[in-house]
């Protein structure tokens, strides 16, 4: 393998890996405040891409993306308020089934609105063929957009959770919900906020990735599985580890292209997921150590 090819694979891996990391962080934010795995997380990414493409017909690109992100956030809030908020003590099984149902509804709605064609946003800078040199390899500038935006989101979330009072309240809610209520924090609003945040970062990632990965109504499930793999790899609830795990999975996938047929590529991340679940199921069950890392 030439150095150039190696770097090309590496960059591709990092690009996909940062998207997986954002999906995983979306899982983590909601998991931390509610203990729910939101199976519809991948659909937020799809919606971000699709809505941006639609709004682009009326608005310039930055405005279209901004509006798409805001709309997805509103959808996230609506989901929480309509389906989650008023349930008293729902079991895990019930929540799993509800969020799966939601992901199906969103996907089917997308199918009826946008059809089953592949859509994509235009490249933010240049076009399909424009490249810039990175360490001797030629990569698309859009790749840098994806990596850059994802990195910025990670930094933003970190600052949000560490330095703002709302962020701290959300962390308090994650650490001990009852105690948070006793301290006067409205945990319900925190849950809504966690859905809004997850939807927002998912949608933004969905918009920036759209030019290179394309957007289709059914990309959500695959992304959700990969995001979940990454979340588990990093330890559920631990978002910084999710970034490392996301990059790891992305890079493994990228390099596996040279060994495994493309059609089986999805199977790799699922195999990793299964192995992780089998080998370390107990270590991953919200152990006290993992709970201690429940912050961004």
């Amino acid at each position: 393998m030439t150095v150039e090819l190696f770097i090309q694979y590496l960059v591709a891996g990092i690009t996909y890996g940062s998207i997986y990391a954002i999906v995983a962080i979306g899982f983590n934010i909601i998991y931390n405040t509610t203990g729910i795995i939101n199976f519809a997380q991948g659909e937020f990414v799809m919606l971000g891409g699709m809505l941006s493409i639609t709004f682009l017909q009326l608005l310039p690109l930055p405005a279209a993306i901004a509006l798409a992100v805001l709309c997805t956030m509103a959808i996230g809030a609506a989901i929480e308020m309509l389906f989650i908020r008023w349930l008293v003590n729902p079991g895990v099984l019930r929540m799993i089934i509800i969020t799966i149902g939601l992901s199906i509804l969103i996907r089917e709605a997308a199918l009826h609105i946008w059809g089953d064609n592949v859509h994509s946003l235009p490249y933010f800078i240049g076009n399909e063929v424009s490249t810039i040199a990175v360490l001797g390899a030629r990569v698309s500038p859009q790749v840098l957009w994806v990596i850059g935006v994802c990195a910025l989101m990670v930094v933003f979330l970190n600052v949000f959770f560490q330095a703002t009072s709302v962020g701290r309240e959300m962390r308090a809610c994650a650490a001990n919900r009852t105690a948070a209520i006793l301290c006067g924090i409205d945990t319900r609003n925190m849950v809504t906020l966690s859905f809004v945040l997850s939807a927002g970062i998912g949608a933004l990632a969905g918009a920036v990735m759209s030019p290179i990965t394309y957007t289709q109504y059914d990309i959500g499930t695959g992304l959700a599985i990969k995001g979940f793999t990454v979340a588990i790899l990093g330890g559920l609830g631990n978002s910084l580890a999710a970034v490392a795990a996301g990059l790891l999975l992305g890079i493994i996938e990228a390099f596996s292209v040279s060994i495994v047929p493309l059609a089986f590529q999805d199977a790799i991340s699922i195999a990793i997921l299964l192995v992780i679940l089998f080998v370390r199921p107990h270590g991953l069950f919200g152990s006290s150590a993992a709970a201690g890392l429940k912050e961004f």
Partner: protein
Amino acid sequence: MKLKNLALLPLLAVIVLVQLLCSWTDSVFYLTQLTMSAYYSLLIIGLCVLMGYAGQISLGHAGFFAIGGYLSAALTTRNLVPFQDQFCVRLLDAAGCLTAGQDIYGEALLVVTPWAACVIAVLTAAVVAFLLGIPVLKLKGHYLAMATLGFGIIIYRIVLASSYFGEADGISGVPGFTLLPGLSVSGDFSNRAANYYIAWGFLLLAMLLLRNLIDSRVGRGLRAIHGSSEAADAMGVDTARFKLHTFVLSAILAAIAGVLLTHYNGGIGPSEASIMKSVRYVAIVAVGGMANLWGALIMGVILNFLSLRGLFGSYDDAVFGLILILIMLFAPGGILNLRFGGLRLLPNLIAKRKREGN
């Protein structure tokens, strides 16, 4: 025969009545969808025991259905003439498991007989379920859901990506499956009524067996795990083994359903292995009330029939998604348990039967 199994008699009467009605009113085409619904329901009542009684969710049961359907389809259609000299093929031949013939172009054709294919397919599903179940059933909640979902996706990817399984086109031209002389599972119009009874016969038999199971030492053990796994342990119930055996049992039923439906339809496509199918099965069990075999059976037949009739049009998947959400939000006990101001919407069949039985 115990008195409580008489509860199956009204069902038998309904089955016969529907068939007669269909032939009198000249609407035998309904029988086709009813036959298919019966096969899907076979899978669903197995999943019902796994989810409702053993308390384990599976989002990958379409995978077991596909293992059964695809293997029997591939084995009974893929020509083995080029591999005639290989050890496995000769072994199958010596065991009388191969049948020779001609394909549509007059070329020599050597394929596995449906019976042998069925046995291989169901055994494969059972072994896969066993090997998968050992690690998977140690998981709980989200982890179990994701692991079984992952399994389902892997099966889907495999059938979609391998030419042996026909990729996106699936496998067609699957021959009929002669169960007994004169009794064949196939899509021939002349066989429509017979096939209707075969399918419902399988479903009734499975229902009988599963009802026996629930009301036995094993069934009590399973329900005890659900009631309090700590106390079940203390009473000597090997919870891990029971969960695993139930998982394998439900996989076997799914595979049998897959085999029979594939022979009935004369083919199978990748959509049968899709996650949406697995989710649909879970939805139907949930609508039926989880730990309610009658609920699962009734809902399995009704919803599959409506879906196969095309009533939901292009909103098919959306309808099942919506059903899932509505049931989980408003009637987590299943639709048969839905109450309005203290009045049950529909009589709770299983509770009534239970009292009659005791």
